[in-house]
């Protein structure tokens, strides 16, 4: 029995208080199902109060054994599977695969098909960046931009549905060409969309880009210096946000990209500092403008012809191996393909840009707030379908 003693302070309360006050770290699972993780990603956070001490991403929740599947598919059958890797930019994925196989097999592609490919790939880049624009705002609590971004994306999807029949997974870019020529009046619709879309960028800037609250949430948050970005193998807008001028469409042009006139957008520190979340966001906004430029030029230059002329009936790929890289909305997508001359590929290894981009998270997370981690994760623009494959 304790005897209650009214004389306070009591000796029992005279604990020794360490100096400084030691607190336990708190382990927090962010995800796998969490709206800010853009898919199913689990980030294990060790936090000290609201400060993140370490963040470790755990992946694999969306693993669908794409690479193993590809070994059992004939060459054209792989295309629907690569569509499903980065489902926000299916066209770009298929483009990389088709170009890689064509180079290995020595297939020349019809001019018109090449232009159609560039048009759909760049439109898909815009669509993908629009999803980023919307969801990034959503991550930071701005709901309205999401609706605006999806409105324009819907128009692109309508265009895609008309040319390929699919809205998300197209199976449009085939080895040796494209599945269909553009229907009548489609190219005019594309130009109409460009005319409609360009003024919308200003709307986005008014709504979100230069909003003071948004800037405060993103500027200076998650700064990835140039050397860190290169060391972690970042690519795409995430790399360019750190001020590195590197775009495969310019630096290692594939397909017919050397015929177009466009700028590579680099984070310039208009707000915040180069390499922070705001600049990564800004690069993507600028890139949408550049993509519309490319689309316009492609529609202007497109020759007449039969887009399906060079699609082979049976794809024959001689024995050999190839590594081919293209620039998708997320960065450098590389295909390493081995063929033994048979009907199926022997190995299709994918270098997924979002995978490398995510790998930088543990390096930038320590010392940030939990809420800022959401901003950093959003600005990396990961797609888990591609990371896990």
């Amino acid at each position: 029995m304790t005897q209650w003693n009214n004389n306070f302070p009591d000796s029992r309360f005279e604990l020794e208080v360490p100096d400084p006050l030691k607190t336990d770290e708190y382990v927090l699972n962010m995800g796998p199902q969490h709206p800010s993780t853009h898919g199913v990603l689990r980030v294990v956070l060790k936090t000290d109060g609201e400060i993140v001490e370490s963040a470790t991403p755990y992946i694999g929740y969306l693993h669908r054994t794409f690479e193993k599947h590809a070994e059992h598919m004939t060459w054209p059958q792989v295309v629907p599977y690569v569509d499903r890797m980065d489902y926000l930019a299916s066209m770009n994925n298929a483009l990389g695969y088709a170009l890689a196989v064509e180079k290995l097999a020595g297939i020349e592609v019809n001019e018109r098909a090449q232009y159609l490919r560039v048009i759909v790939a760049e439109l898909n880049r815009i669509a993908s960046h629009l999803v980023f624009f919307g969801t990034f705002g959503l991550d930071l609590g701005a709901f309205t931009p999401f609706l605006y971004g999806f409105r324009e994306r819907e128009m692109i999807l309508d265009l895609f549905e008309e040319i390929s029949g699919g809205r998300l997974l197209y199976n449009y870019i085939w080895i040796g060409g494209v599945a269909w020529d553009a229907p009548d009046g489609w190219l005019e619709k594309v130009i109409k969309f460009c005319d409609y879309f360009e003024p919308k960028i200003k709307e986005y800037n008014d709504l979100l880009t230069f909003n003071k609250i948004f800037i405060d949430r993103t500027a200076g948050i998650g700064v990835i210096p140039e050397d860190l970005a290169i060391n972690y193998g970042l690519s795409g807008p995430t790399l360019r946000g750190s001020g590195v001028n590197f775009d495969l469409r310019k630096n290692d042009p594939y397909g017919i990209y050397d015929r177009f006139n466009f700028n590579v957008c680099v984070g310039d520190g208009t707000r915040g500092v180069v390499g922070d979340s705001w600049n990564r966001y800004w690069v993507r906004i600028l890139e949408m403008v550049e993509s519309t430029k490319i689309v316009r030029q492609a529609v202007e230059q497109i020759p007449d012809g039969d887009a399906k002329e060079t699609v082979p009936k049976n794809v024959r790929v001689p024995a050999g191996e190839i590594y081919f890289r293209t620039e998708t909305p997320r960065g450098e997508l590389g295909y390493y393909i081995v063929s033994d001359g048979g009907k199926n590929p022997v190995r299709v290894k994918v270098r997924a840009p979002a995978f490398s981009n995510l790998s930088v998270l543990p390096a930038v997370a320590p010392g940030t707030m939990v809420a800022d981690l959401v901003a950093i994760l959003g600005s990396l623009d990961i797609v888990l379908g591609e990371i896990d494959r």
Partner: protein
Amino acid sequence: MREYFKNIYEAVATILIGMGVTLRHLFVPSVTLQYPKEKIELPPRSRMQLYVNIDDCIGCRQCERACPVDCIEIDTIKADKDEDLGLTSNGKKKPFHVTRFDIDMSKCCFCNLCTFPCPTECIYMTPDFEYAQEDRSNLNFHFSNYTPEQVAELQKREAEKKAALAAAKANAGKKPTAN
């Protein structure tokens, strides 16, 4: 202090700019559709449901082979020599009874690869998307128009033919050993 008020001013001003954008959108026509009441007409290429015009199918199984997920299942039985199954609409002879033509739409990945190799263009995607089912097995569409009795009969005939052929072979094989 000045910084403090500047921040407040900027936050309010930029929010008002954003709200201006939203306000302007009150006066533009809406872009959404009230779905069950209004419907959009889908372009002819849209891939919503596979359809097989079974009268034109020659049972060549090219679609089955093209499918990456094996959701098409076809059984065929060869027609007799004197049996005429008629012609397809583009004038091809039909050499097979297609006793089973099942497409499991719940497995289908809507890639459209099956529709291109078909020599008679009888398998194609239609823009009809309203076929939700409560039971997954209802998504397995059967296109063959043979009744189970007909199929059983044909199978019996085929088995008899095979048996006869095997017997003939066995007889033919016996002879040399007998000699």
